[in-house]
């Protein structure tokens, strides 16, 4: 388990938000020691899920990024996205733990700013290899604006901003 946080063996279906006061950036840990975001029923090797890991306090590096200028309904435009690989510590020897996330906006006060009030905000510049950290946003995309049923999933989550 190394330095990963852990709780119940069944885990929660919630990806972000958690059950406590503080939203969590939830990944799953499995019996074979691997960690994935998002959580799945079993690991890539079929091992059962044994706990969760909160990625919120971890830094990562940008694997790649893009700025999308043609975004779907309810999504900020432009929308800079990055795939980020988390630093999991020397004790972790599983497959890379990554997440796809929006790049945060300058002046975003460490978490606030939903899709509507964030629209058009200047987004940080990032490049491959840059160090970034998660920043909570209570609404990444306007629920109900797109085709997906609003109640079928969460709409809060984490963006990434460069580490100073």
């Amino acid at each position, binding site marked *: 388990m190394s330095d990963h946080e852990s709780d119940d063996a069944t885990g929660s279906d919630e990806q972000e938000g958690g059950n406590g006061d503080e939203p969590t950036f939830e990944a799953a840990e499995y019996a074979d020691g691997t960690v994935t975001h*998002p959580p799945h029923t079993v690991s890539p090797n079929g091992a059962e899920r044994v706990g969760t890991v909160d990625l919120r306090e971890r830094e990562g590096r940008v694997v790649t990024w*893009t700025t999308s*200028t043609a975004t779907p309904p309810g999504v900020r435009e432009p929308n800079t996205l990055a795939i980020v690989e988390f630093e999991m510590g020397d004790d972790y020897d599983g497959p890379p733990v990554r997440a796809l996330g929006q790049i945060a906006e300058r002046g975003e006060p460490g978490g606030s700013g939903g899709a509507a009030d964030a629209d058009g905000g200047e987004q940080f510049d990032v490049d*491959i290899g840059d160090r970034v950290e998660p920043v909570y946003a209570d609404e990444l995309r306007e629920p109900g604006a797109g085709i997906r049923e609003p109640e*079928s999933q969460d709409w809060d*989550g984490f963006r990434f901003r460069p580490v100073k």
Partner: protein
Amino acid sequence: MERVAIVGASMTRFGQRDAWVRELLAEAGAAALDDAGVDGDDLDHLYVSNMASGEFEGQTGVPNALAHDLAAQPAYTARIDQTSSSGGAGVYAAWQSVASGASDLTMLVGGEKMTHRTTSEATDVIASLTHPVEYKQGVTLPSFAGLTARLYLDEYDAPRESLGKVAVKNHENGVDNPHAQFRKEVDLDTVLDSPIVADPLRLYDFCPITDGSAALVFCPESVAEEYAPDGNYAVISGIGGATDTHVVHERADPTTMGGVVDSSDIAYEMAGIGPDDVDVAELHDMFTILEFLQSEDLGFFEKGEGWKAVEEGVTDRDGDLPINTSGGLKSKGHPLGASGVAQVYEIFKQVTGDAGPRQVEADTGLACNVGGFGNCVTTTILEGSQ
């Protein structure tokens, strides 16, 4: 197991059409029946490849509607949905139906009606295949392409221009395809100066939104000459289907499409050939970067070398391995459920020597149809009977 032949093929004009999905399916289906010289009620099985007629136009139950329109009752029908690879999955289902002995005559019709929706709406329908943690970030299939293209160019030191040359080549091929949505050449400057859609990719790196339909008729090879009296037909010598992770960022190497590797391994083994034996290929160039990834993951070129093949003209129509002689999805268009069927239509035309001005020397051809961003893949290998 029966070897399976294709004895009839058709496709409608791809592009912006007034017809709705039922009419598009019926147009291609009737033409394929005519091509094979059979009637609707000769069919044992009738499959429809379609991703989202319910979401796009509120029309569900399309297989039964098509069976009625073509007087194919009491044929068994089913809709095959595997997102953008619905067409390839339909080929797999049709092949299975005949190879297993369950059907002596099967027709597959793939089709989609999309252009009545705005680009934003159509993009969202397609992006709805993503995982919730991806969807809420506003990811689209084009943005996956931008993410992957940037990484590919960086890892393999490929010039941005090489992606543009895929678009130039496929538009050039599309000029000679009467069914293609865009029958005009584009030059490299036009591609590289077009508006950014998902940096570093620009408008001309992407296929259009398209209406259209395509159809194929399958039977046991042992009776193929009943439908092809001249003895000129195609045989499915190999076919394989595979999946990769649903969540794209969980792949070990984001520039490798595992489903392409695995599905082609199965297809090659069944056909008893290797990538060097393929004479012509139709790849799923929904985005220019996908032509590089698939040409490498199919084993045509070493990893990171696909861009060089395009630069050197290897994949041109008169090159050693012509790729996307039809114009590809890039020029021909991409009506989701029809695309995989139309890819096999082009290979059928090539290996039966009926591709007109697009004809290349080809005994063996391969079609690779990709769903999602490599999430589901079907690879089909055809050989000509003559």
